[in-house]
C-alpha cells in the first residue's frame, strides 16, 4: 500500500534530536539571565521569581518526561522494514491512569505554594503607606504624582533620540521617574483615556490602568538602580513607544528630585478606590441648565456628586487641575500645567514635537493661524497627513474634548505665548462656541 518505506533508525534519531533541541538553539547563548528571567529588585518580585522558578523546573521536568516517553514509544514500537508483528490488544491500565491523574495534582499543589505567597502580598494593601505614588496612563505617556510631596512628573514617549540613551546617563535620568528605595509605597493607578498597563519587569509587577477604575498595589524597591518597563496593554498606534523609565535612589537624592518637580499648586488625590466611573447621570431635562459644572473635580472622599450631570463626565479627566480664570496671564500659567500633563508627552516639553511621529508646536503654522482651526484640532483631534514647517507627518491626535473650555483655552493661550510663537490668546467662550 505505502509508496515509501518507513524512516530508517538514523532518521528517527535525527527527528527526536531536532524535536527536543530546536527550541533551545542559540537562545541560551543570547540571554545571560538565569532562565531568561530578569533580576527582581522588590520583595514581591522575589516571590514572583520564586513562583516562576518552581513552575519552570516542574514544567521542564514534565516536558522532558513526556518527550522521552514519546520518543521511546516511537523508537521501540516503530514498524521495522519487513517486520511482521501483531500489535498489543490492551487498551487500559487502571494503575497507570490513577498515577497520571494524581501526580499532576500534586505538582499543581506544589505550584500553589509560592503562588499563594504572592497573592497574600498583593492583597495586603498598606492602610497608612509611607508614600503614595499616583500613576495615570494617557495616550501615550504616563503622568506621575506624589500627592503628599506635591510633586508631579510626566514621562517622555520614546523617540529615535531618547531610545539610544544609555541607562544612568544624565539625559536618561532627566526622563526617568525617581522612586525612593526601602520605603513602602502605595501605587494608585488609573487611566485617563483608554486602558494602559504599567509594567516594570524588574519589579515583578504589572497593573492595567482602566478609565473609571482606580486600583491600589503595594510597592517597595530594595535595590537602587535604573529600571525600564513599557506599557503592556494595546492603547493605540504608539503603544510601542510608551516607555517607562524609573530610577530608584536613596532618600537624599529623592528629596532633591522632588524639590525640582514641585507642582505650582496643591494636588488633590485622584479619587476613591474602585469604580469611580459608575456614577449615574441624571436623566431629567432641567439639570442641563447649570452648565458651569464642567470643572468639578471628582470629590476625594468618593461622595459622588450624582445630582450634577457634569460630575460624571470623564472622572479622570478632572485629574487635571481645575481652572476657573479668564485673565490671559493666569490662563497661560494654568495652561502650562495642562500642557505638561496632557501635551508634553507627544509634543515635547519645549514644543519641539517628536519627529517623525508628532509635529512640533513651536513655530507651527497651525498654532499661529486661525483661532477656530486650532480650537477644532483640540476638540476633534487630527488625523491623516499634515505638513508642519515643511515636513510631512501622518499620525493621529485624539480629541481633547474631555478637557473643559477653560483648560483648552488656557493650554492654547500658553502654547501661543511660548517658544517663539506669537498667536493671540484664546478665551473659554471661543472654545465653547466651537464645541
Amino acid at each position: 500500500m505505502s509508496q515509501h518505506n518507513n524512516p530508517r533508525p538514523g532518521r528517527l534519531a535525527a527527528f527526536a534530536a531536532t524535536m527536543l533541541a530546536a527550541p533551545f538553539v542559540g537562545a541560551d547563548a543570547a540571554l545571560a539571565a538565569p532562565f531568561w528571567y530578569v533580576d527582581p529588585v522588590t520583595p514581591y518580585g522575589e516571590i514572583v521569581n520564586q513562583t516562576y522558578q518552581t513552575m519552570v523546573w516542574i514544567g521542564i521536568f514534565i516536558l522532558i518526561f513526556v518527550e522521552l516517553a514519546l520518543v521511546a514509544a516511537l523508537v521501540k514500537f516503530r514498524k521495522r522494514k519487513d517486520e511482521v508483528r501483531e500489535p498489543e490488544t490492551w487498551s487500559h491500565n487502571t494503575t497507570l491512569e490513577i498515577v497520571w491523574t494524581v501526580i499532576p495534582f500534586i505538582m499543581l499543589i506544589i505550584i500553589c505554594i509560592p503562588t499563594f505567597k504572592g497573592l497574600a502580598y498583593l492583597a495586603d494593601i498598606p492602610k497608612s503607606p509611607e508614600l503614595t505614588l499616583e500613576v495615570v496612563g494617557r495616550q501615550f505617556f504616563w503622568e506621575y504624582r506624589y500627592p503628599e510631596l506635591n510633586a508631579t512628573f510626566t514621562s517622555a514617549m520614546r523617540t529615535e533620540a531618547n531610545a539610544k540613551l544609555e541607562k544612568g546617563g544624565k539625559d536618561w535620568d532627566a526622563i526617568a521617574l525617581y522612586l525612593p528605595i526601602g520605603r513602602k509605597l502605595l501605587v494608585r493607578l488609573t487611566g485617563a483615556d483608554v486602558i494602559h498597563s504599567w509594567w516594570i519587569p524588574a519589579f515583578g509587577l504589572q497593573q492595567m490602568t482602566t478609565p473609571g477604575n482606580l486600583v491600589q498595589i503595594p510597592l517597595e524597591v530594595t535595590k537602587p538602580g535604573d529600571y525600564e518597563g513599557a506599557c503592556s496593554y494595546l492603547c493605540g498606534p504608539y503603544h510601542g513607544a510608551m516607555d517607562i523609565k524609573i530610577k530608584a535612589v536613596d532618600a537624599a537624592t529623592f528629596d532633591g528630585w522632588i524639590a525640582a518637580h514641585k507642582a505650582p499648586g496643591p494636588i488633590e488625590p485622584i479619587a476613591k478606590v474602585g469604580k469611580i466611573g459608575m456614577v449615574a447621570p441624571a436623566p431629567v431635562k432641567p439639570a442641563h441648565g447649570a452648565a458651569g459644572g464642567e470643572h468639578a473635580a471628582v470629590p476625594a472622599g468618593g461622595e459622588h456628586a450624582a445630582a450634577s450631570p457634569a460630575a460624571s463626565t470623564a472622572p479622570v479627566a478632572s485629574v487635571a487641575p481645575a481652572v476657573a480664570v479668564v485673565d490671559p496671564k493666569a490662563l497661560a500659567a494654568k495652561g502650562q500645567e495642562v500642557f505638561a500633563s496632557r501635551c508634553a508627552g507627544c509634543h515635547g516639553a519645549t514644543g519641539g514635537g517628536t519627529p517623525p511621529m508628532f509635529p512640533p508646536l513651536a513655530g507651527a503654522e497651525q498654532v499661529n493661524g486661525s483661532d477656530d482651526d486650532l480650537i477644532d484640532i483640540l476638540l476633534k483631534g487630527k488625523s491623516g497627513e499634515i505638513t508642519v514647517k515643511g515636513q510631512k507627518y501622518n499620525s493621529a491626535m485624539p480629541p481633547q474634548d474631555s478637557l473643559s473650555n477653560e483648560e483648552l483655552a488656557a493650554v492654547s493661550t500658553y502654547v501661543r505665548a511660548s517658544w517663539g510663537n506669537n498667536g493671540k490668546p484664546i478665551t473659554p467662550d471661543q472654545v465653547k462656541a466651537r464645541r
Partner: protein
Amino acid sequence: MTDHSHHSSHGHTAAPAGAGAPADPHVLEHEIASIFPLITSFATALFLFGTAATWNAYAFGPALIVLGMTIQVAALIGWWSELVRDNKLDETTLIGTPAEARQGLRIGFGFFIGSEVMFFAAFFAYYFYARGLSPVWPPPGFEKLPWEPALINTFLLVFSGFFYMRGEHLLEHGKSKARTLFWMVAALVFGFVFLGIQIKEWYELINHHGFTVKSGPMGTAFYLLTGFHGLHVIIGAIFITVVTSRIALNHFTPHKHFAMTAAGWYWHFVDVVWIGLVLCLYLYDYFRDWMFPVARQAIGLLEPMIAGVLALVA
C-alpha cells in the same frame, strides 16, 4: 468504571451487508438542495454592511439596508416554502423517517432556545453589574418606572400564552378548526397589543420624561432589555402568524404539528423573559422599600422558633 475492553466503539466495523436498515433506493436519490442558505447569508451580510455604512454617514447605506432586507425576506419565504413542501411530502429522506426528523427538530429547537437564554443572560448580566456597582439606583431625578404598563403587559403576555396553549390543546384533540383559529388569533392579538403598549411607553418616557438610551446605565439597561425582548415578541408574532395560516391551510394534524409546538415554546420563552424583566426592571424598586424590613422581621420571628426546635432536638 465498567469494563469497557470489549467496547468496539472507536473501532466499530460495519456489519455484513444487509444487517442494517435496508435502503429504499428512492430515499438514496432524495436530494435536498437549496439556494436559499447562500442567498440568506449574503443578504444578511449586505444588510449589516448597510447598517454600518449608514451609521458612518455613507450615502449608499440606507439603500443597502433596504436591498439586504428585501432579499432576506424573499429568501426566507422561499426557504420556508421548501420546508412546508418537504413536510407535506412526509417521506423518509437522507436524514431519516419523518418521525426521526421531527425528533431532531425537537432537540434542536430546545437547544436553540437555550442559546437564546444565553443571549439574554449577557444583557441581564449588564443590568445586575451596573446596578450592583452604581452608588445610586435608580438615578436621582428618576425614581421609578411606571408600573401600570408593565402590569397590563404581563397580563397580556400570560393570557396570550394560555390562549396559545388552548389552541394547541384543541388541535391535538382534533376539535374544530374554527375554534383553534379563534384562540390562535386571540393569542396573536394580545401579542400585538403588548407591542402597542410597549411602543407607547417608550414614546412617553422619551418625550415626556427625557428618559432615553443616553440616560446613563438605567436608560441603557431599560431600552436594551425591553428592546431586545420586543424584537423577540415580533419574531414570535411572525412565527405564530405563519403557524396560524398553516392551521387555516390544514397543514397540521393532531399528531403532526411540530411547527406549532415550536412556536409555542418560543412564545412561552418570550413570556418567561418578560416576567424576569418586570421583576428586575420595574417591580424591584417598588418592593425593596418594604420587602427587606419584612424579610428581616420574618427572620427575627423565625429565629426563636428555630432555636426552640433545636433545643427540643438536642
